[in-house]
């Protein structure tokens, strides 16, 4: 069920990116889609009642170099978290580039409305 809600968020973003005629709104739609995918990835690695995948002093025994069994059995999946960190940075990068293009286009055309930005045919 949480997956489905997350997918709903994704589809809302897709709707916004496809239907809206304003450049900033399109960017917003893309951002919403990115949030949804990131959330979905992290949700995949969640365990009910889990702990964060960070070992602190209480879970590590320096003498025996052993990690507490409780950590091994409850830690959530670190791999999707690493992926999401990468994905967040990528989305920030594409946001920066996209906004630059928007701002420059605004300077040229004086509008954010893509129905009026139409010099290219087809």
């Amino acid at each position, binding site marked *: 069920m949480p997956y489905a809600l997350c997918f709903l968020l994704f589809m809302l973003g897709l709707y916004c990116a496809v239907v809206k005629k304003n450049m900033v709104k399109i960017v917003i739609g893309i951002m919403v889609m990115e949030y949804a995918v990131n959330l979905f990835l992290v949700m995949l690695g969640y365990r009910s009642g889990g702990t964060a995948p960070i070992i602190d002093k209480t879970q590590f025994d320096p003498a025996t170099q052993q990690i507490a069994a409780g950590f091994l059995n409850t830690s959530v999946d670190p791999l999707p978290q690493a992926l999401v960190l990468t994905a967040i940075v990528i989305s*920030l990068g594409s946001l920066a580039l996209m906004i630059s293009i928007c701002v420059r286009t605004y300077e040229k055309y004086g509008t954010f409305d893509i129905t009026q930005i139409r010099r290219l045919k087809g």
Partner: protein
Amino acid sequence: MKGMTIIVKTVSSWVKVLIVLFGIYIILFGHLTPGGGFAGGVILASSYVLLMLAFGREFVQKDLPLALDSKLDCLGAFFFALIAILGLVFSGVFFVNFLYQKYLPGQPLKLISAGTIPLSNIAIGLKVGASLFLVIFLLSTFRRDTSAGR
């Protein structure tokens, strides 16, 4: 735009130091606590963004010239790639954590541990901080130039 009132200026010049310190802390302890090079770098960038908002753009230009900023951006990325290539040089495989495995194992849960991971964090922090500040600065200056032109 000459910046905001004296109150904002005074407060932000104090807060800026704290933010920079916090950013450095997040970067340096990235391998032990939540955070890391990326988050820390963004925090560093936001300290300068705060200065820019409070004092105006010229002030920040004096503190951190744009040319220097873009050089830092390139160098940060270059250092990170260099860490990868040093792995190739020292251990024969790309991206080996050669420091941890060969030269400097360190103590678990201590600041100096994990070999190249803290170094990578520093390189990424440098790169991210410089580049994000650069893009925000460019976006805001660009707007002013065009509005002045009209």
